């Protein structure tokens, strides 16, 4: 579906994407993870065929966005980061007119708009103004709109940012169903739980390059341990104590409020710590998550 080789994007002197290779296969859910400014959105815009490639090769459905932009966009669904809905039109017309932009005929647009209102669970709002919708409804409408042309490939830029937990779960459910229906999904997110839930495969981007690639499971195996022991001591003691238990895990990370010991056997770490006469205020053994991988690869400092 998507193939990129040495893909680069520069804005003046600033290089947002510094040569990435990506392949997205038909029917999979593919994620771009990364902190702000990692180059995710720039990559998405190039795939959406609205941002010219600076250098390297990009093919979508085997077509070149530089020459076949309209043909590619005809088969894409794009759900941008911000809800860019047409506020001058009502909810139904937002879907209807958007369909007409694709050259879909009147009757099909009408049927499709009604189906999608139902899909987004906003049928009763069909005649409302867009500004009267709640944040979750707007998001669902934006996603519904991106499906008007029955896309082969759906691009979702931070699909659940700003939604409450209920709305996020509804949306995940809908995206999962779309995937079941054979739609290829490309998602950018910085919610690790979202990436773990939705993505078959993902890349972690940082500062314009790909830092790691694989399935969520593979990434955890490659870049973290099976488990993490979290140990909380008194404030200010963590730095000094870290040295004493360094040998207990593969890696020890010092945070202001706790120590993280990366090990395949978290319980053994906790037992060993107590045997050494140290008395943590609280302990927690958990499985490694994608978040551990993410922070390992992209650092804990703020990106912007």
């Amino acid at each position: 579906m998507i193939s990129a080789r040495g893909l680069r994007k520069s804005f003046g002197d600033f290089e947002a994407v510094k040569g990435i290779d990506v392949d997205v296969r038909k029917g999979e859910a593919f994620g771009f993870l990364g902190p702000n400014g990692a180059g995710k959105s720039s990559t998405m815009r190039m795939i959406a065929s609205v941002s010219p490639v600076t250098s390297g090769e990009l093919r979508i459905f085997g077509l070149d966005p530089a020459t076949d932009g309209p043909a590619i966009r005809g088969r894409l669904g794009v759900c941008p980061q911000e809800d860019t809905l047409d506020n001058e039109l009502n909810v139904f017309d937002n879907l209807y007119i958007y369909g007409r932009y694709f050259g879909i005929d009147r009757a099909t647009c009408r049927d499709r708009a009604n189906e999608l209102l139902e899909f987004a669970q906003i049928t009763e709002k069909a005649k409302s103004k867009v500004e009267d919708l709640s944040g979750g409804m707007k998001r669902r409408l934006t996603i519904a709109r991106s499906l008007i042309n029955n896309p082969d490939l759906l691009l979702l830029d931070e699909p659940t940012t700003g939604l409450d937990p209920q709305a996020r779960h509804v949306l995940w459910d809908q995206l999962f169903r779309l995937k079941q229906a054979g739609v290829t999904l490309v998602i950018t997110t910085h919610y690790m739980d979202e990436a773990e839930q939705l993505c078959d495969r993902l890349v972690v981007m940082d500062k314009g390059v790909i830092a790691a690639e694989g399935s969520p499971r593979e990434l955890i195996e490659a870049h973290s341990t099976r488990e993490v022991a979290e140990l909380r001591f008194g404030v200010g003691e963590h730095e000094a104590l870290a040295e004493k238990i360094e040998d207990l895990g593969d890696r020890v990370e010092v945070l202001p409020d706790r120590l993280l010991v990366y090990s395949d056997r978290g319980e053994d770490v906790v037992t060993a710590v107590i045997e050494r006469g140290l008395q943590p205020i609280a302990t927690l053994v958990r499985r490694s998550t994608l978040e551990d991988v993410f922070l390992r690869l992209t650092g804990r400092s703020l990106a912007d």
Partner: protein
Amino acid sequence: MATLDRVAIPAPLTPVHAARVLVLRNFIVYKSAWKLFLTGFLEPVLYLFSIGIGVGQLIDSFEFHGEQVSYAAFVAPAMLATSAFNGALLDSTFNVFFKLKYEKLYDQMLATPLTTGDIARGEIAWGLIRGSVYSAAFLVVMVAMGLVESWWAVLALPAAILIAFAFSAVCMALTTWMKSWQDFDKITLAQMPLFLFSATFFPVEAFGDGVLRWVVEATPLYRGVVLCRELTTGVVTWESGVSVVYLVVMGIVGLLVVRRRLDALLLT
């Protein structure tokens, strides 16, 4: 969840089809706000009544290209040109700026098979249609009031459409450089003198034979005003041809600039 049937993906739109869809979008927006449409139409009608007919009673008829015309018949075609100018200006400046900067409407359209060329053509077509509707309505008023003196006036409507096209395109092009609403003061600053001094209310001879008259004769609204006046009074000259070419070139240049500017602003 409703099942979503597959729809066949249509071939990319032709330029004409794309422009029609954009016009449809604007039409739906204005269907519920048709009163806004009235203001653009009423303005020149009110000028015609107050100045053309009111002030006109104080003025004897005078010569235009060697023909005797009444003052009202002199002012009316200028108001016809102005109505096309106003209609085109309203949409291609404020509305386009709003869609471009705030609504991000064109970004939405570019996520579909539409291109920047389609957007440029569609929006200019809409400005042109709006200007033309005003002009057609105004022409009806003119005919009803006996201010049309020649069959050439049949061509006054296409002339007004041409004026709307030229101004739509150029004003939309200028709008792409606007940074904030304050910049629109410049538009108003250009609009007023164009309206007042394009031989709208008095003959261009009043500027004497100097440079000033040449300047006035080279401005676009003047070309539109004389063109309409020549057609409704029936004194068509070689100058009419000059005006037509002038306005056509102006519109095409504007259209090309709009397209390039949209590329630069939106396809980053």
